[in-house]
């Protein structure tokens, strides 16, 4: 695929490109948003609260956990702490995105930060490590993504009243498929291979050791260390 990359491209052109590159993410958001809406209604949340959660929390895993805990009548403080633990990975993602938006003014970094999700993180890291960061394009993907997430949740609220078994539509595989689609092309060297394998294997090990939501943070740290070690080691080898 050829990438148009002239700096004279218009504002509208960036909006259109931004929407186009987000299309696969929107597909995933639609699938997951509907799934969330259905589950939330079936767990007993009101339609308004279900949509409000997609608007304010805007993080699939934390929302699914939140709905289940709310349904069980778990105290609000515990639910908020669970959200903190599950979403701690955003600290890592946002740190990795920080260099991309370093030249934005603070208020734009603030608006950009509000919209960080697993999907937009993966999309932006994948895209803007190959191409220069385009501000309008990036904000377009964020805004369109958020709107579709909320709209799909609303659709799920409507569907939730009628459909019960949603797994058979493959909606739950959208997110992992998207992560695979973004991760695989990012692996371009032996160091990347080592980092990716260490990340995956150590996630399983930390899980076996009893970590649940912290396992992602622990596995990420281990994989980063493995990457640094591998770099040091290859530098010492005469090539």
């Amino acid at each position, binding site marked *: 695929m050829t990438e148009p990359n002239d700096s004279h491209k218009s504002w509208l052109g960036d909006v259109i490109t931004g929407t186009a590159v987000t*299309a*696969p*993410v929107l*597909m995933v958001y639609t699938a997951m948003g509907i799934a969330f809406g259905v589950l939330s209604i079936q767990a007993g949340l*009101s339609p*308004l609260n279900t949509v409000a959660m997609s608007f*304010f*929390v*805007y*993080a699939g895993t934390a929302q699914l956990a*939140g709905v289940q805990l*709310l349904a069980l009548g778990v105290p*609000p403080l515990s639910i908020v702490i669970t*959200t*903190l633990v599950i*979403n701690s990975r*955003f*600290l*890592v*993602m*946002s*740190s*990795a*995105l920080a260099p991309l938006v370093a*030249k934005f003014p*603070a208020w734009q970094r*603030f608006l950009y*930060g*509000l919209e*960080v999700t697993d999907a937009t993180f*993966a999309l932006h*890291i994948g895209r803007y490590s190959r191409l220069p960061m385009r501000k309008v394009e990036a904000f377009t993907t964020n805004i369109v993504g958020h709107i579709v997430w909320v709209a799909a949740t609303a659709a799920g609220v409507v569907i939730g009243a009628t459909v019960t078994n949603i*797994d*058979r539509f*493959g*909606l*739950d*595989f*959208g997110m992992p*498929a*998207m*992560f*695979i689609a*973004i*991760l*695989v092309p*990012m692996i371009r060297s032996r*160091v990347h291979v080592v980092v*990716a394998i*260490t*990340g995956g294997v150590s*996630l399983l090990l930390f*899980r076996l050791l009893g970590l649940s939501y912290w*396992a*992602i943070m622990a*596995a*990420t*740290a281990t*994989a980063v260390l493995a*990457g640094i070690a591998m770099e040091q080691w290859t530098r010492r080898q005469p090539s």
Partner: protein
Amino acid sequence: MDQTTTFLTILAMGAVSMGLKLAPVVLLPGRKLPRWIDISLRHLPVAVLSAMTVQLLAVVDNEIKLDFGNLALWAAIPTVICAALTRSLFWTIAFGMALVVALRWAFS
């Protein structure tokens, strides 16, 4: 729990969620970071993506599931090949989701 308390809980969840997303992009740029953080940031994307992918595939209901009952895990292998060949976000997701639907249909 009544819906008003639920709504307030959702607002608090939102505040926590936004804070975690915001803090690094707002606070990190413009700061002189220690060299080890700079080096770590370079490996961070692949590291966190691979950990999350394995979590999404191998962890079902908070338990590791590596058996044949976990169809999504096995569907991931052709999906990885599809991603390597097409390098397309759209085709990889479409292929993966279609494959999972087909496998569930065939094995249920």
